[in-house]
């Protein structure tokens, strides 16, 4: 199969590569450039484990082709905390509120939360539940994920 050259900025670094046109963005991230913090949980775009931000918008990186990311910017959970600040408020909140157990849904859940709070800095409980509907977690029952999002919102100056 012919390969196509792409150039993608991932977590602040530029990666030039040649990929098959059918290559999924998540496989490019994980297998070609070693950003294994983002994970795969399904093959039907249902679980959200692979969620990243593409030019600031959350996408399921299993349903985006690597070539579609050409010339664009990807932010994963590994690049979320910047410079001195080793913890993004959303990460801090998930730890504080025990919003994770096995941690497999976590990269996607955190990125989806970042996106949610960008759109709606002070979501209600039902807005949080609806907003995270595309991200499945089998461990936490979501109770503490909802609390984590509420606390993150507070830390980021959203609610209260």
């Amino acid at each position, binding site marked *: 199969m012919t390969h196509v050259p792409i150039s993608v900025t991932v977590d602040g670094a530029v990666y030039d590569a040649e990929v098959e046109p059918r290559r999924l963005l998540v496989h490019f991230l994980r297998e070609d450039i070693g950003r294994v913090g983002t*994970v795969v*949980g399904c093959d039907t775009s249902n679980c959200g*484990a692979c969620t990243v931000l593409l030019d600031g918008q959350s996408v399921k990186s299993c349903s985006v082709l690597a070539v579609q990311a050409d010339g664009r910017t990807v932010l994963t959970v590994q690049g979320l905390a910047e410079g001195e600040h*080793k913890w993004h408020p959303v990460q801090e909140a998930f730890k504080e509120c025990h919003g994770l157990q096995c941690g497999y849904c976590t990269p996607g859940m955190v990125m989806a939360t970042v996106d949610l709070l960008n759109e709606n800095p002070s979501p209600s409980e039902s807005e949080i539940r609806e907003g995270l509907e595309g991200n499945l977690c*089998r461990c936490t*029952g979501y*109770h503490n994920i909802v609390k984590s999002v509420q606390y993150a919102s507070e830390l980021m100056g959203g609610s209260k």
Partner: protein
Amino acid sequence: MTDTMTTANANAMGRPLRRKEDARLLHGQTNWTDNIQLPGTLHMAILRSPMAHAKIARLDVTPALSRPHVVAAFGAAELGDLNGSIPCVWPVTDDIQMPAFPALAVDKVRHVGDVVAVVLASDKYAAADALDAIEVDYEPLPAVIDMEAAMKHGSVAVHAAADGSHGSNVCYEFPLKPTGDGSFEAAVAAAGDDAVVVKRRFINQRIIAGFMEPRAVVASPMGMSNEMTIWSATQIPHVLRVLLSLVTGLPENGLRVVAPDVGGGFGGKLQLYREEVLAVQIARKLGRPVKWVETRSEDMVASHHGRDQIQDIQLAATKDGKLIGMKVDLIANMGAYLQIITPGIPLLGMFMYPAIYKMPAYEFNCVGVFTNTTPTDAIRGAGRPEATFAIERIIDEMAAELGMDPMKLREMNWIKHEEFPYTTVAGLTYDTGNYEAAIAKALEAFGYDALRAEQEQRRASGDPVQLGLGISTFTEMCGLAPSRTLGALKYVAGGWEHCTIRALPTGKIELITGTSPHGQGHETAWSQIASSILGVPVDDIEVVHGDTGRAPYGMDTYGSRSLAVGGQAIKKAAERLIEKARVIAAHQLECSGDDLEFIQGEFRVKGDPAKAQPLAAVAFEAFSAHNLPDGVEPTLQAEATVDPDDFSYPHGTHLCAAEVDTETGKVTLRSYVAIDDVGIQVNPLIVEGQVHGGLACGIGQALYEGVEYDKDGNILTASLADYLIPSAADLPSFITGQTVTPSTTNPLGTKGVGEAGAIASTPAVINAIVDALRPMGVTDVKMPATPENVWRAIQTAKGGAE
């Protein structure tokens, strides 16, 4: 808000410390099996049967070999002797039928997803592509999916009999039949006219484990001799090592099994899977690392399923509500093959049907049946959710029959707190418990009386949205030990656990555990236990687990056993370490060991606290060994392997309020209260999290989840689009709370918590729905209680056409 506790001296036990695991997990610095990329790796792709039952008339894998990047392809013929049989370690009866279970199907496929052939390629996409090239001719055979049809004489046989003749689908029959006074019939007869017998058939449907990390395995031969390292997304690295050695014939001492970060298990990764055997055997044959990561679609048909029982339950009571006996007749679906403990799952339930109630008679019969479906095995609770569902459902049915309040009927029959220890009619001795306390607390948190009043109002006004209250006053057994009890049940392995603690020369502690966490937070909780004994800060303790190379002894993590059993080993090892250190410290301080007290991480001379020696200094002395007392060996470490005296018995009360739209069948959970008694808690934050997750699983079974087959054995729920794992939008927030009755079967007083939520919640939800609809004549609702199933139950009760 944060309680991170890095200071020494404070007691770490019982505090809601934030988890040590989380920094890594939240920053994507993870080590999932799928992250492992070794040079020269071959990716394995699997050709699975699209048919539930068929003869493989012809299989030709060679066309795959000419596809790009393909290195090898195997069917059963090509794999030959390396195609071992997957073992079952729980032959529950002497005459159980245990058919061969080859890693690659030989001649026949027996369920959709059965493994027919594999392709190995240097590129993952290429391996999957090449499956197309494999040529298979199937001769379809009639499939048997329905358990009762499968039991009938002359049914299509999933397996031929051992002598090659037409087989029976009955895998085993397990009777627990007391005769004479203890029998159910005798008890009912003795009560004469006063006896009320309620009989129900419950269907406990098939579900998946639903771990979010798909299964994955990497097998890497080391090139020399027979050494092999295997990384697997497993709950049971230690057991896996033993079994892989037995199945492959590779010497156990050459195998190292690592469970790196594992993304949930819920029983679904308590298994020796055929894909693990294939990866090892092919890596061995080709001398290259082999990697396999399942797709979610494969998981849906090939990771073991759970539950799937038909439960015929009879409960007898006197007219004033005293229970007199219970009879359980189960049909349990084994699926097409026996996996690691498939036949034993219903028997774990056998002990729990009488639950928290006193009754003089109990009978249990179980028939295990083969069908052309994915094998079943343990999923969160394993046998106990099914048992709890049956007893808590039928006790409500009995209450309705007797015209009693369901809580009142329970109260009349439960074991009172002053009656512990109590030996149940099923033969277990519950060490401690206080059902009254948990129930009182739950009723208060729930606002039971107000909700009952609202229910009356809605009934009176004919509100189309009715309110139902569901009760589940459950107990369960966890710990799965002692080993001799497991032996008596014909379970092959033991139930002990191991811990080694090393005090390193720099003062850091290495705690090596045989448990293998995959979300349970052992690194934090085990550090808390050790910290509370050793007086060393939690952050100075490193918990090593999940790697047979670094943690050689263990029985792994399942059955809510890790704390109940593993916790004891930690305590014992820590205490032994202090005893050894005491001898050295006494020598250093020039006193007798008896004159020392160990407080806050240091040995102090009694009455002269200025003279003290911290544990770290003792550890360094043990390392340098310059001045050890005579007869004391260098290094400061201690180990303990503990086989507990008995199971432990968490219990609690779960209450569910459900609104049921009688026009659409839609169920909305209005509130859910869970008061759990899991004994002494090491970390209440983790305990709560475990309860929440269990609730989601049990509520999922009640409302959303169910594996569906059509009559030909095609699986209709083969992706996460069709099988509904609840999302955040499908669940409410929960009200949780605790009562604490320390267990007396272990010195920490702990029980187990991993499964409690899943065990208790399913009947609470269904009881609530039935309670809402009972005035309409509804006495049961098929699970999952989807709007359609609820609506149908209403229509059937009305006697209307469906």
